[in-house]
């Protein structure tokens, strides 16, 4: 990893501000928001070193961070592509063609669900219901919901993401103001 595992001062200050939203001594509550930031800042996944760093900010034991990070499906514990395509596969999306979307993407990107393209651009990740059942089928990439998908829409989406070439994170909506 080329980047040193350390937030800049502004982000660190934000973490400390967030930790104050909870009562005295209960700052561990900030672990999930901080892990979201860490995942966005350090390449889209949480390495043990990153998790140890989060533990040091929260002044808790590393294992407590591993326990939490490994429980929630939005945290990646392995390297992923710049754009993780979270495709919903649950009932409402399934009946409206989610399997077609997956097959199309697998063919287009030359990878299977769960894999990352060789260029490190895309990862296909199957997820469960994202609360977009009325606008199925859908996929999420970063903070964006892409709904009422058709194969044409999927093609365009891939081209747009590829052209932009940026890492997409759940926190893309300027988390410095959020959280």
């Amino acid at each position, binding site marked *: 990893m080329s980047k040193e595992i350390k937030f800049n001062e502004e982000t660190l200050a934000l973490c400390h501000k967030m930790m104050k*939203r*909870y*009562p005295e001594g*209960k700052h*561990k*509550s*900030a*672990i*999930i*928001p901080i*892990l*979201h930031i860490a995942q966005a800042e350090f390449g889209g996944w949480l390495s043990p070193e990153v998790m140890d760093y989060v533990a040091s900010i*929260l002044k808790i034991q590393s294992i*407590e961070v591993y*326990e*939490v990070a490994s*429980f*929630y*499906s*939005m*945290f990646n514990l392995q390297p992923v592509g710049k754009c993780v395509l*979270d495709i919903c*596969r*649950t*009932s*409402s999306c*399934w*009946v*409206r*063609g*989610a*399997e*077609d*979307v997956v097959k199309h993407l697998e063919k287009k990107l030359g990878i299977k669900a769960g894999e990352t393209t060789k260029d490190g651009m895309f990862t296909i990740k199957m*997820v*469960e*219901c*994202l*609360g*977009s*059942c*009325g*606008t*199925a*089928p859908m996929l*999420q990439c970063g*903070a*964006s*919901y892409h709904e009422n*998908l*058709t*194969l044409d829409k999927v093609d365009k989406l891939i081209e747009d993401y590829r052209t932009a070439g940026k890492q997409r994170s*759940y*926190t893309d*909506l*300027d988390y410095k*103001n*959020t*959280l």
Partner: protein
Amino acid sequence: MGRKLLIHNDKVPNIHTLEVYRQNGGYASVEKALKTMTPEAVVEEVKKSGLRGRGGAGFPTGMKWSFLAKPPGVERYLVCNADESEPGTFKDRYLMEKIPHALIEGMITSSYALGAKTSYIYIRGEYFYVARILETAIEEAYAAGLLGKNILGTDFSHDCYVQVGAGAYICGEETALLESLEGKRGNPRIKPPFPAIAGLYGCPTVVNNVETIAAVCPIINMGGDEYAKIGIGRSTGTKLISASGHINKPGTYEIELGIPVEEFIYSDEYCGGIINGRKLKAVVAGGSSVPVLPAELILKTDKGEPRLMTYESLSEGGFISGTMLGSGGFIVYDETTSIVKNLYTFARFYHHESCGQCSPCREGTGWMEKILHRIIEGHGKPSDIDLLWDIQRKIEGNTICPLGDAAAWPVASAIRHFRKEFEAYINHPEKIKDAMPII
């Protein structure tokens, strides 16, 4: 047209801003409650309204509030459950995205009633952009003196925060949600104690669904008695229904509790009928956890009476021939749908979302998924149907939290009402056709 109390203004331009929201009567319940009512009086109105929890369990909200312990010198909390993850449910997302102030207003009024100085809105991590909308609304409310110290010049002070989750259905269970909010794994707690006695950080806590909290505003504005006049029997007021599946007009609808299911499915005001003029096959009426019912039983009860959109009518007939209103996640399946394959998507879901804490759910959900996978792949055994039945029966009621029941009921109901379809899969695997194309 039925009455709407929650999303009647959803098409008003910029209703997400405080200015427009207030121009349309927003924050009236805060004004009324904080300036003219005691907290006890607010609780009383909610009790009178007959409001029931809109997250799925349908427990009377006023009663839940009155259980809140109030030991002197101990903080109390209101936590909003915005973890909406029940498959088929997206109404909270719609409400928060379109009219975020409706939730913030409800948070303030409810916190006043409960004596909570701090509240948290726990929202599922995937709804990050919605969290941002709520944050903006909260900032506006602080700036306008609706949050913070001495709200509207009264003695009541309150802070409200948004907390994001990170992908776990189980965090919709209230004690798992509290664990997650405390920065831990989302493992449900063993009850008792209930959150009303020892909830967030060990303090008395009320956890309510987004829609429940938003419904407190019209209740205070119109009075509990007036609210209770809407609906039928113990199903009072309006309810947001998330409609999805094979219908012409999927989306979020606010209904007066009590309209016939048939009207909801076929009227142009709501779902607009089945897509491509196909026939209705089955409905999951209240989110993936509730029993699936075949067309004849969802439209009419086994007594031949029209089935209504109420807690009572939908559960008429118990689990033999009824279902539940649940979260209002209304998924419609047309005649081309394979119930077995659909059940597989549910079983996979519960397996994926089991927290792993207690043995029946941890082991049983995976086992059921494996058997269903074998069946849809054409390798099912004749004994698999009875085995599935027995496994779900041994999960149900024996787990720490309701996820076990939620995993069991879809399996039980699918076998109960569609056994022949399972047999067809097992006996004639060569005939399996269960692909569902984009429409």
